[in-house]
């Protein structure tokens, strides 16, 4: 299953054959299926796909936050620094979260408790994981706020979340996530809810912090532009499984999977003078997946064979793609 492009030299995170199920009116449905990849120390990897493709669920699985009753990890292995996370009990997992692996979420407006001040919540996280006195933790929080670019941190630390703008709240959440200097930061659509100019600031901040602290980043997003500007490697998901992995440059220059190519062709602004070339149809519902390749009904390059056997992820010269025709198709990229 594992291939070149999805492995890293010194992996912080290793995911093997991960499958996650959720209970729905159609019974237990597999939402993430056979996902394997690695994230290397200090590396930024993009996990990209459209809504419902399973990218966020994968991220939540790493933190052990798939809720007990409505969802479960049904298969696979998640290792952080070589330690099997799925084998940990909830108490051990709590000690890892926030300490070794941290997460920043999409909705900065609702992701901080409105009932407590920013400082209160930052001190709480610091003191939970590190042996610090209250005043040390407060001092450290001020430094962190300063580091994430919040002006006047001495005053802001006593603000309630509603007194801060969306961009500032996202900075606070980043400061909180990075307060214990984790080995891995998972950023789940960290800028989707922000305006473009603020998004640029936050992405810039994340890149700077990463360079400084040397942590690995798994960036979950639907935005091809964000991925191309921030990530070294990209993993593309479709309908719950990985369809392509490659280095960012390779992926954008020459996509191997027709879905990747079709997504690029759907972007307005790349070829402003040509009409858009949208992907027809919709993502197949999980309880009625087609027998062959899951992208086959929407794929303009599909041949008869694509409708019968489900393709595996095959390595193609240092990268991988889940397409029978990966070798013979020449798909257009975004050109340089």
């Amino acid at each position, binding site marked *: 299953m594992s291939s070149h492009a999805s492995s890293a030299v010194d992996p912080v995170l290793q995911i093997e054959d991960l499958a996650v199920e959720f209970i729905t009116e159609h019974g237990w449905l597999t939402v993430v299926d056979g996902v394997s990849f690695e994230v290397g120390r200090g590396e930024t990897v993009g996990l990209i796909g*459209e*809504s419902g493709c399973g990218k966020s669920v994968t991220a939540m699985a790493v933190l052990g936050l798939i809720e007990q009753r409505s969802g479960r990890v049904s298969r696979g292995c998640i290792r952080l620094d070589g330690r099997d996370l799925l084998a940990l009990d909830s108490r051990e997992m709590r000690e890892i979260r926030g300490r070794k692996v941290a997460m920043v979420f999409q909705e900065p407006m609702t992701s901080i408790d409105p009932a407590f001040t920013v400082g209160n919540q930052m001190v709480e996280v610091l003191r939970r994981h590190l042996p610090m006195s209250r005043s040390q933790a407060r001092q450290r929080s001020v430094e962190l706020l300063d580091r994430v670019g919040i002006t006047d941190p001495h005053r802001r630390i006593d603000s309630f979340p509603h007194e801060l*703008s969306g*961009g*500032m709240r996202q900075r606070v959440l980043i400061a909180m996530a990075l307060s214990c200097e984790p080995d891995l930061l998972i950023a789940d659509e960290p800028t989707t809810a922000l*305006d*473009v*100019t*603020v*998004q*640029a*600031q936050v*992405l*810039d901040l994340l890149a700077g912090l990463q360079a400084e602290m040397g942590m690995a980043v798994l960036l979950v997003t*639907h*935005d*091809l*532009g*964000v*991925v*191309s*500007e921030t990530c070294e490697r990209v993993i593309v998901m479709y309908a719950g499984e990985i369809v392509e992995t490659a280095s960012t*440059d390779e992926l*954008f220059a020459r996509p191997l999977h027709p879905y990747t190519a*079709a*997504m*690029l*062709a*759907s*972007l*307005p*602004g*790349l070829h*402003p*003078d040509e*009409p*858009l*070339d*949208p*992907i*027809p149809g*919709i993502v197949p519902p999980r309880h009625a997946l087609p027998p062959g390749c899951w992208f086959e009904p929407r794929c303009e390059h599909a041949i008869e064979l694509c409708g019968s056997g489900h393709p595996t992820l095959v390595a193609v010269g240092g990268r991988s793609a889940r397409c029978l025709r990966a070798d013979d198709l020449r798909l257009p990229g*975004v*050109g*340089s």
Partner: protein
Amino acid sequence: MNTTGSTASTPILEVSEVSKSFPASKDVFGRVVARLQAVVEASLTINPGETLGLVGESGSGKSTLGRLVMRLTDVDAGRIVLDGDDITESNGPELRAARRKMQIVFQDPQSSLDPNWLVRDIIAEPLRAYGVSRADRLSATERLLADVGLEHAHGSRYASEFSGGQRQRVAIARALALEPNLVVCDEPVSALDVSTQAQVLSLLEALRDRRNLAYLFIAHDLAVVHHISHRIAVMYLGRIVEVGPADDVYNRPRHPYTEALLSAMPNPKPASRRQRILLTGEMPSPVDPPPGCRFQTRCAHAMDLCRRVEPELVAYGDVEVACHLHDTGPELAGASVTEISRGRSAGSAAPAS
């Protein structure tokens, strides 16, 4: 793409110096003590068959301007002329008549369709409001369903059963039911995924060409706006700061804000990547806008004048821009602001990537 739909005839929409503010805070006795200035003296013109893109970040007032045009919100000052008729103060039958000519598609396809209604009835609602007979409604609905790429069977479903893209198609069909000349599209694709977004954009383009529709296309995504628009207007903190032909604004921004907005867009194409201009801070509150130019607090080129005098929109060829860099100081006089940005970063020896 860049040719304006038509030039000679009367504009389908003329908005002049429209302003709107909302109460922002009240004192202990419930009296309004501060007002949020959502739109300030905004003017724009749309010709038949033309698409004007209106870009801005959240809080820029672009959606309010769309609602003002639709007369969903009453204006405080200014004039709205639709196809030669002043509808600023229209009400009752007059407004009903005006609404045959303009329709709106909203951002959130989830809440813009009544979950209790069949898709067929949603599309026919405007027709019923104008007393179209049942038989005519049925045939019109069938035609509209086909026009937006939905099947006959979709008509007898509830909107809640559809995906976001399909819902937006329903909303477009409803907007087209009365065969309007102008459609206000308020962020019609921003809630959609990339592939669905492309489907809806293509549909809007096809319909425009087939029916000679004019669009006021409101969005925060410059790439999307550039793709679909003939002309682009950029809003910042309630004011229009730059208007001009789409390619001009996109490739040679005259206003520092437009430039910053463009450079902040994440771009998957490495070659066309612009040098990033990181704006400091965030948009000030529209309750308490800064004096002088509204952008001066975040502008790298701000001069003393900018902090005192509010710049007016001045025309330089096809482009209008409200910035002192053009009427004083370095006298850019309508040239792209990127020139001085480049000079500046070269001067400070920042590596251009």
